[in-house]
């Protein structure tokens, strides 16, 4: 078997994974058993698929084989153990798989996948454990891959996943088919988890962006999968659109030296046109439902940025309105802070500053608050106060890229405060805004 063959089989296994592990979990009601059964089925697939060709329905094949291998295992180890239901283990898998796989009930898949995702976003797990568990169980990333994406050691990640699994087992999880209300609650939880995965990758700084990109790509894959299962959920359309539109900019977000490039300064020709087209198509579709929610509103904002071929063409009035709507459905000082940027473009820096001043007590330790505040003060010519805000921002910066970005503002302030005519610095500074 050539190396390329293996790569394609691995892709087939990855794509079948959520469905197969979900079904095995419904059957065995235990994450470890389901995962192990799937691994064993994968090993068999790697052996038999290259010879016999891939089966017509890889997921059904993997479910069937995974079940049988696990049942065989139970038989071998505990002779007296009664088998679950009336299923029989088949030793001659090659001949039996086709017909049996066809008889699997496809209507369960949707709930299986949702249940699998829901278990990973168990409300009792902290966000970092939710993400790690989802990447391990739903996406099938290795512990090593996840550890690398999170920038922690393999051992620490192994421990995090083991802990998460233990907590899930301890809490007990309902396995019956969820009702309509519960399903929509679960759906919201799963959407939030996918967005967390995306943000985990997206918040990377310049030197780690490449390393963490797989998290963004995996989040997009999961969002698309969820949307295939729930094709008429506008918020899932919104979520998928949002992360596509954000990820479309990834090639333009960092300079060669790893420093962050702001939206206004990004080379828009580097944006991924296909991803933007998909995102715009999805948000268009979502809006027709007239049931807006936070993901749709954020996606609509991202869409307005994506539609502008130059920063000057950005429809800031519309963005200001959308942030206003977001403040209503999801009030938070960070949303107001983001809105202030749009306000500064529409009604000037003083209006924007008035909007954010009351946020100071709540955002006293938030890097972006001081960065934005400093920028407004700078635009108003209150350079000394701006300098103080920027200093505070640097003290609170989470990454070297953030700190470097603020230093750039300070350099501009220093240039501006020099007497006019000195190297034309003042004019240059003004133009750069």
């Amino acid at each position, binding site marked *: 078997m050539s190396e390329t063959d293996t*790569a*394609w089989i691995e*892709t*087939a296994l*990855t*794509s*079948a994974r959520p469905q197969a592990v979900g079904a095995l979990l419904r059957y065995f009601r235990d994450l470890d058993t389901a995962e192990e059964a799937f691994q064993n089925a994968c090993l068999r697939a790697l052996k038999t698929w290259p010879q016999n060709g891939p089966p017509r329905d890889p997921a059904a094949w993997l479910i069937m084989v995974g079940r049988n291998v696990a049942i065989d295992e139970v038989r071998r180890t505990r002779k007296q153990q009664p088998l679950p239901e009336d299923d029989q283990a088949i030793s001659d898998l090659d001949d039996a798989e086709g017909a049996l796989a066809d008889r699997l009930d496809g209507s369960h898949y949707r709930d299986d996948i949702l249940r699998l995702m829901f278990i990973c976003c168990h409300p009792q797990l902290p966000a970092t454990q939710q993400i790690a568990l989802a990447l391990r169980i739903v996406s099938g990333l290795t512990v090593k891959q996840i550890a690398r994406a999170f920038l922690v050691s393999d051992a620490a990640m192994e421990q995090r996943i083991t802990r998460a699994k233990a907590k899930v087992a301890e809490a007990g999880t309902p396995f019956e088919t969820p009702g309509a209300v519960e399903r929509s609650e679960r759906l919201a939880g799963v959407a939030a988890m996918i967005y967390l995965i995306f943000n985990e990758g997206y918040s990377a700084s310049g030197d780690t962006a490449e390393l963490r990109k797989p998290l963004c790509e995996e989040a997009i*894959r999961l969002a*698309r*999968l969820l*949307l*295939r299962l729930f*094709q*008429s959920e506008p918020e899932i*359309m919104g979520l*998928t659109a949002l992360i596509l539109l954000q990820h479309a900019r990834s090639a333009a977000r960092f300079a060669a030296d790893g420093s962050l490039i702001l939206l206004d300064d990004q080379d828009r020709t580097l944006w991924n046109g*296909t991803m933007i*087209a*998909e995102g*715009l*198509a*999805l948000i*268009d*579709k979502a809006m*027709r439902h007239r049931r807006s929610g936070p993901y749709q509103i954020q996606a609509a904002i991202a869409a307005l940025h994506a539609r502008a071929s130059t920063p000057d063409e950005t429809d800031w009035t519309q963005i200001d309105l959308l942030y206003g709507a977001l403040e209503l459905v999801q009030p938070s000082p960070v949303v107001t802070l983001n809105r202030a940027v749009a306000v500064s473009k529409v009604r000037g820096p003083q209006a924007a500053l008035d909007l954010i001043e009351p946020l100071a007590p709540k955002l006293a330790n938030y890097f972006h608050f001081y960065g934005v505040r400093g920028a407004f003060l700078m635009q108003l010519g209150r350079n000394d106060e701006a300098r103080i805000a920027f200093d505070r921002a640097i003290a609170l910066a989470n990454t070297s890229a953030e700190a470097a970005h603020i230093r750039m503002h300070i350099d501009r302030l220093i240039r501006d405060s020099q007497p006019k005519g000195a190297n034309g610095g003042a004019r240059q500074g003004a133009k750069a805004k």
Partner: protein
Amino acid sequence: MLYAILCYHDEDFVGSWSKDQDEAVMKKLAVVQEKLTSQGRLGPVARLLPTTAAATLRKEDPPLVLDGPYAETKEQLLGFYIVDCKNLDDALDVARDLGAANPGGAYEVRPVGVFRPGGIPA
């Protein structure tokens, strides 16, 4: 006689391709397309965005817009249009006009990701 060759594949599978795998496929396809182009036999080539980006207009009265791709086994694909539209609403308007002229069935409105016009003389 012109022939339409319609591409089918499992979307979960294609959606799980890595960027490298995707590029490798596109490169191999380009070789085949290049050969056809040099013979003057290649018409338009389009790669569609995922089915999740699709909406379907059922040509009832009034026409009904549904999310997702068209999936009805008792009807067959009879033809297709490529139309330049501002957005989904615009595209659905076009589909509605077409539907008024040609009752029954459905139109799937599916954004195109890659489009090459091809070189067959009109």
